[in-house]
């Protein structure tokens, strides 16, 4: 028997369900917006659906499967742009302003699940909604305004051409809200011009960046979503239990040796830690050794933070010393305010393009965020252009006189402008490095870093992190799907493995599949969920009133992964595309991972991974047994024809 879709099961009447009928932590409604018809309405969803799909990535995956059939490509008006939060958003648990963007994305033309934090999730919940599902294409540029029961699709002509920070500034000024009174997520010029790796950025420095979700928003002519912090109250089942769980999480983050570095410095330690392992991408994967004269001490976390006048820029209810704003201290941009880069920014706007001056990299990273593009893809793209120019595969004439040398952030910023506005060769580059390399062809094509599916690898050198290469290549989210293990021994997995042991790598990636889907469905940040699953489940149980064990959390996560995979298969993204590009899968020529070749082991890693996750190696489909075990029987007819 097929499971009913969310669309079919909801009560069409709008209005808030009785609080007593709902699990705690939920607002209880999904906001629907049809931009083509200029209308919006809300739908309640049932407690059973909440338990099955939680929110965020889980809810989004189900809606995507139900409502976006194969002919509805990423740029089709009927594609859905789902902005979902989860049951912990808006509650007093660290980092719970979470937003999950789920859609059919532009890079892979398949499933996307990408997250950002800030205040969006909390503001949305306080306004009475657990998610927004956007469909249709507006006849002109619009923005969505939400304040409690007021939902309006408004003209956005005055925002045209503005970057994501300018957009937030303009909306704050026009609407009279500032600071944390209103959350704004928007697209910049890149999204407006359908740059394929455009992102959705908000609350000054938070970015849902993967798989071209900003291009989807641009195609819908939706410039921004502005949510005034609502006046609603969230009920929780066990307030004291929730506070105890929140305390446990905070304590764990402050004392666990790994999480403690995040608590103190966010991801700033990433540069040196990864450099020591040969996993810092330098100059488009051409080396793993820092350029001569690089001051590595300047890349220590305290130096990166103290080298700037800085202020905390915490997300909703967060006590981490993670997000910060900085002031550029020296150089041509002295005095400009920027957001302290995440590790990914230091890599994508820095090392990947040969830039090793933290001040210059910090400035460029914010230009990328403001323009609204994915900093990972930006790094691979600009690094590729720089290498191709150095080797004579691309000429300055092709780039309209622009000459890009390693580390030249000013030239990289000019290239960013060309890309954002699709000027000249920027029009080709706006398609991302995979398609640009295929268009240029010749030896240039072999220098590009991408997956065959089209997803951008994260900003690490995965040739020293085979787990992440396998994860990225097999992913159905448009980015890492499993991510680095968190408390691996909690589920009987080894605390550490030899990162170049192909079987151990594949068992690890497959064995952890599902945890991140669960995290991404809670409405919380991936950095504050770096605690034991039992703590997260305790918080979820206290909020909702459910008994929610960690085993259910993993099963939920695997259900979500299987749904997203089914969606990708329906979109034509099969196992034949699960491989790295030649450069991405090449062998490091120097550094700590020198000579470690992944290519001879690739097929074996896939075999082991498929066996562990319970998918069919030949077709890529979750097996019937897996689907039954996950409670996804309704997918069997669609995937297996019986």
């Amino acid at each position, binding site marked *: 028997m097929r499971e009913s879709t969310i669309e079919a099961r909801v009560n069409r009447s709008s209005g808030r369900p009785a609080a007593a009928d709902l699990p705690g932590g939920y607002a209880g409604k999904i906001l629907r917006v049809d931009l083509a018809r200029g209308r919006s309405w809300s739908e309640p969803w049932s407690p059973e659906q909440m338990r099955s799909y939680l929110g965020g990535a889980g809810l989004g995956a189900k809606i995507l499967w139900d409502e976006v059939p194969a002919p509805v490509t990423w740029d089709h008006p009927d594609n859905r742009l789902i902005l979902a939060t989860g049951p912990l958003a808006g509650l007093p648990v660290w980092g719970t302003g979470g937003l999950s963007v789920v859609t059919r994305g532009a890079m892979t033309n398949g499933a996307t699940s990408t997250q950002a934090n800030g205040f969006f999730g909390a503001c949305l919940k306080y306004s009475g909604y657990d998610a927004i599902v956007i469909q249709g294409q507006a006849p002109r540029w619009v923005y969505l305004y939400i304040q409690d029961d007021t939902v309006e699709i408004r003209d956005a002509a005055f925002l045209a051409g503005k970057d994501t920070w300018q957009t937030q500034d303009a909306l704050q000024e026009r609407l009279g809200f500032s600071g944390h009174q209103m959350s704004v997520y928007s697209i910049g010029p890149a999204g407006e011009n359908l740059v394929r790796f455009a992102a959705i950025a908000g609350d000054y420095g938070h970015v849902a960046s993967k798989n071209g979700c900003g291009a989807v928003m641009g195609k819908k002519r939706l410039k921004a979503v502005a949510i005034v912090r609502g006046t609603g109250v969230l009920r929780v089942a066990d307030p004291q239990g929730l506070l105890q769980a929140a305390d446990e999480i905070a304590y764990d983050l402050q004392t*666990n*040796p*790994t*999480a403690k*570095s*995040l608590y*103190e*410095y966010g*991801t700033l*330690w*990433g540069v*040196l*830690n*990864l450099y*020591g*392992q040969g*996993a810092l991408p330098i100059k488009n994967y051409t080396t793993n050794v820092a350029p001569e004269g690089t001051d590595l*001490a300047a890349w*220590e*976390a*305290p*130096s990166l933070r103290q080298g700037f006048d800085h202020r905390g820029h915490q997300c909703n209810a967060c006590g981490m010393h993670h997000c910060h704003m900085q002031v550029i201290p020296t150089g041509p941009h002295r005095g400009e305010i920027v957001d302290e880069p*995440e*590790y*990914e920014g230091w*890599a994508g706007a820095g090392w990947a393009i040969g830039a090793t001056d933290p001040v210059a990299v910090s400035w460029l990273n914010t230009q990328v965020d403001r323009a609204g593009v994915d900093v990972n893809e930006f790094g691979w793209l600009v690094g590729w252009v720089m290498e191709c120019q150095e080797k004579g595969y691309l000429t300055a004439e092709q780039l309209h006189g622009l000459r890009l040398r390693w580390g030249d952030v000013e030239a990289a910023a000019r290239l960013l402008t060309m890309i954002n506005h699709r000027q000249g060769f920027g029009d080709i580059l706006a398609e991302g490095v995979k398609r640009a390399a295929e268009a240029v062809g010749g030896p240039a094509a072999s220098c590009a870093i991408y997956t065959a599916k089209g997803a951008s690898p*994260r*900003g*690490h050198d995965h040739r020293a*992190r085979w787990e992440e290469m396998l994860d990225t290549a097999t992913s159905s989210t448009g980015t890492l799907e499993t*991510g*680095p*293990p968190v*408390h*691996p*021994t909690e589920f009987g997995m080894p*605390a*550490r*493995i*030899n*990162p*170049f*042991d192909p079987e151990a790598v594949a068992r690890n990636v497959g064995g952890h599949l599902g945890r991140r889907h669960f995290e991404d469905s809670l409405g919380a940040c*991936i*950095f504050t969920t*770096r605690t034991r699953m039992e703590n997260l489940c305790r918080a979820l149980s206290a909020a909702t009133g459910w008994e929610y064990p960690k085993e259910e959390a993993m099963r939920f996560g695997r259900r979500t992964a299987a749904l997203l995979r089914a969606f990708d298969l329906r979109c034509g993204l099969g196992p034949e595309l699960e491989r790295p590009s030649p450069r991405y899968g090449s062998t490091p020529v120097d550094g*700590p991972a020198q000579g*470690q070749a992944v290519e001879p082991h690739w097929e074996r890693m896939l075999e082991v991974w498929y066996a562990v996750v319970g998918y069919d190696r030949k077709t890529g489909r979750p097996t019937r047994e897996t689907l039954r075990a996950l409670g996804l029987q309704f997918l069997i007819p669609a995937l297996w024809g019986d």
Partner: protein
Amino acid sequence: MSEVRSAIRNPQSEILHVTVEAVAWVTQFVGGDGTRRRIFAEAVPPGATVRSVLLGLCARFPALRQALWDRTGNDLAEHIEVLVNDAVLGLTHSLESPVREGDRITLLGQYTGG
């Protein structure tokens, strides 16, 4: 030839010299402030292994023992990456591998996300 004989007879020459290097954030577990590097020149007897060298350092720095090992005390926990001569454990060395004169053991903070 005489030098070799001298070396065999001299107990001092049987001591192996191994460097343990705590990098940046890991230095806070060995008396540092979480920056730069702390380098320890360890003199160990023949037959010493990567494990025994690390245990020797942990005996002097209990905070490192807590961060480096799991609850059993037998296996490494997930928090700190151990490299020998720039190679992660598993490539050229395991915990039980004998160390050689001049080996360099590096303790790096684990990668924590992007």
